């Protein structure tokens, strides 16, 4: 790090050494995103086609009805994957903001734009509401169903509220934190043009008074905290109502927390991959070592945490040798999904663990990117293993003794493949469209960094001085 400081000119500068004044930052960042290149539109249309495939797959799935829940394993898996990666990505913008880490400034907008992918989660969630049976089939549930006293569809009700709230708060957070930038785009666009009218509406009268900035700081803080709470609630409700209650005998108090912790890891992985993509292909060289170094350390810690959460439940189940818990271990780990479990374990824990301890790997740009690809693959297969396994035994959910028979591995059929590809492609499609509305790099946070980041001579060396405004 020390040697990098010397290239920086003395005095104030943002993440790019050339950005030494607010005008330069606004001009450089906004002009880069003015016109979208042809390759951009080709790529967007490719992902649009994938989204169309997804819709076709969903129609094929809906054609043969929703009575058999076992068919909906892959759809639930990809929906949970969307909630794990795209909906957890904004956390990378929220958490360092609370911890006042200055490296997050250039990364916060790309992370927040991922909340737009909540649309795809909502689209996927609607058919799932029909697929999930009501509580009348006698399965255990967190709502302690008792005929006549408790509404049999309460899991559907509460999970819908939670997911809708999450998506709405995600949008609000993105929009509120982007207001100053939208105002900057409005002021740059020519008078009377359609762009100006659109951005005047979008920037909701932002002119940058000190009251507005003070407001802005508080609103972003509160929305961020609320988003984190909603994310944990969604993972809590979704993993219990749409997963654990379908598996008889799976009494694992830790799994909702494990589901949320894996989501944080996958969210960080998504953002690292987005940063790598922006740096390599979109020419944003400003996303440099600091960002990859900060998120690389976080990724290493979260991979260790993944193992710790997994080992806590595995050790208690393995040691206790209770019949119902042994059946759960058989279903998810030792039985039909053993190869998928090995793949997940290696890609999500072993690979990050044994590569991130080497300095040269951790402090590079491509190191964390490779780890995030491996973690995303591992998380996807982890979700498939858990959800498809759970939905395949959902018909035995009523019997509280435990799983009677372990069904064989369920392979995806054509509709499943279409839905999975469509969901992931659709999320990227919506993300790329959103980058046309919101500037991809947070302009006002870079200008704020200008005030608090300073390179100064300290006797015989140059040091980095970071302001800590209260």
């Amino acid at each position, binding site marked *: 790090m020390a040697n990098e400081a010397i290239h920086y000119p003395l005095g104030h500068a943002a993440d790019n050494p050339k950005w030494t004044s607010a005008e330069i930052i606004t001009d450089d960042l906004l002009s880069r995103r003015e016109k979208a290149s042809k390759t951009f539109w080709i790529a967007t249309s490719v992902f649009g086609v994938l989204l169309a495939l997804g819709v076709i797959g969903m129609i094929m799935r809906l054609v043969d009805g929703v009575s058999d829940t076992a068919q909906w394993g892959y759809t639930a898996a990809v929906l949970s994957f969307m909630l794990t990666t795209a909906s957890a990505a904004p956390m990378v913008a929220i958490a360092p903001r609370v911890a006042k880490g200055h490296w997050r400034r250039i990364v916060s907008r790309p992370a927040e734009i991922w909340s737009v992918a909540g649309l795809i989660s909502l689209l996927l969630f609607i058919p799932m509401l029909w697929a999930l049976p009501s509580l009348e089939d006698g399965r255990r549930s967190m709502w302690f169903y008792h005929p006549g006293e408790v509404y049999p569809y309460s899991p559907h009700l509460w999970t819908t509220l939670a997911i809708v709230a999450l998506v709405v708060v995600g949008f609000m957070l993105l929009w509120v934190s982007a207001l100053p930038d939208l105002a900057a785009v409005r002021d740059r666009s020519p008078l009377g043009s359609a762009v100006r009218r659109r951005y005047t509406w979008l920037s909701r009268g932002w002119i940058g008074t000190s009251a507005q900035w003070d407001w802005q700081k508080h609103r972003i803080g509160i929305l961020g905290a609320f988003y984190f709470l909603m994310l944990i609630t969604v993972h809590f409700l979704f993993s219990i109502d749409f997963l654990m209650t379908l598996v008889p005998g799976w009494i694992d108090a830790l799994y909702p927390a494990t589901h949320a912790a894996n989501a944080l890891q996958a969210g960080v992985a998504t953002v690292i991959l987005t940063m790598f993509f922006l740096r390599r292909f979109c020419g944003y060289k400003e996303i440099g070592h600091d960002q990859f170094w900060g998120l690389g350390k976080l990724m290493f810690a979260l991979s260790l945490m993944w193992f710790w959460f997994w080992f806590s439940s595995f050790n208690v189940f393995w*040691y*206790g*040798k*209770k*019949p119902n818990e*042994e059946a759960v271990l058989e279903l998810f780990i030792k039985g039909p999904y053993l190869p998928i479990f090995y793949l997940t374990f290696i890609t999500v824990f072993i690979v990050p663990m044994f590569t991130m301890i080497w300095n040269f790997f951790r402090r590079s740009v491509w190191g964390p990117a490779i780890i995030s690809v491996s973690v995303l693959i591992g998380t996807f297969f982890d979700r498939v293993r858990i959800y498809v396994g759970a939905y395949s035994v959902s018909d035995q959910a009523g019997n509280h*003794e435990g799983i009677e028979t372990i069904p064989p591995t369920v392979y995806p059929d054509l509709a499943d493949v279409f839905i999975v590809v469509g969901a992931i492609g659709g999320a990227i499609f919506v993300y790329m469209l959103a980058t046309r509305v919101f500037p991809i790099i947070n302009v006002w946070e870079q200008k704020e960094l200008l005030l608090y980041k300073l390179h100064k001579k300290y006797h015989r060396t140059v040091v980095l001085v970071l302001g800590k405004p209260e």
Partner: protein
Amino acid sequence: MADAKWGMVIDADRCTGCQACVVACQSENNIPINDEGLFNQQRANQWIRIERVWEGEYPDVKARFMPVLCQHCDDAPCEPVCPVYATYHNTEGMNVQIYNRCIGTRFCANNCPYQVRFFNFWEPEWPESLKNQLNPDVTVRSRGIMEKCSFCVQRIRRTGHNAKRDGTTVEDGDRALNPACSNACPTGALTFGNLKDENSQVAKLAEKEMHDKDGRGYHLLEELGTHPSVIYLKKVDPAAEKVTEKAHG
């Protein structure tokens, strides 16, 4: 007795709750005397106890008795938690307790769902007159040691050695082999033997009662998955209405 799996069948129908087995066990295994003080401190030491359950409403209330002793489970929750191997599962299917290895962490007692493990809180002592009554084959435990029913392993070893010495084989039902409790039971409710050899009394009973259609056999706390070696037979109650599925406990 390498290929043996010692087990016991307890017929609740025959058990009258006379506590003869409890007394026999106390004297055979040098168990300290439980005076009233010990009972009040909830520190009494009974390797086999009679669980008494009342059924029915007054006036036709019926008492049900069930002798509960160490079940010598195959997947015993008490064995893996002992840090010094003071208890483990030997090749003869019994959960053995090595007294001088025990350091008294009492972890095993916490893990026994049947609560059949007892701890010497105080230094056991006997009045002078009873000192000669102690059984030489069984170590007299000091304080700080965990102890439990051992299926009178000293009698099994003794008959095994005698058989080897005399060149004979150990037959089933040999009174020298049977634990003190099954010998002392007036109604023969406790039958003990080698579950592995088919023509032993225990194996035949287990086969008939556990697998027949209206067999009376069941294991205690089966849902915990401990696979005990003791089989209980349900009481035959002509008055009770037909209970189809296997009730337990």
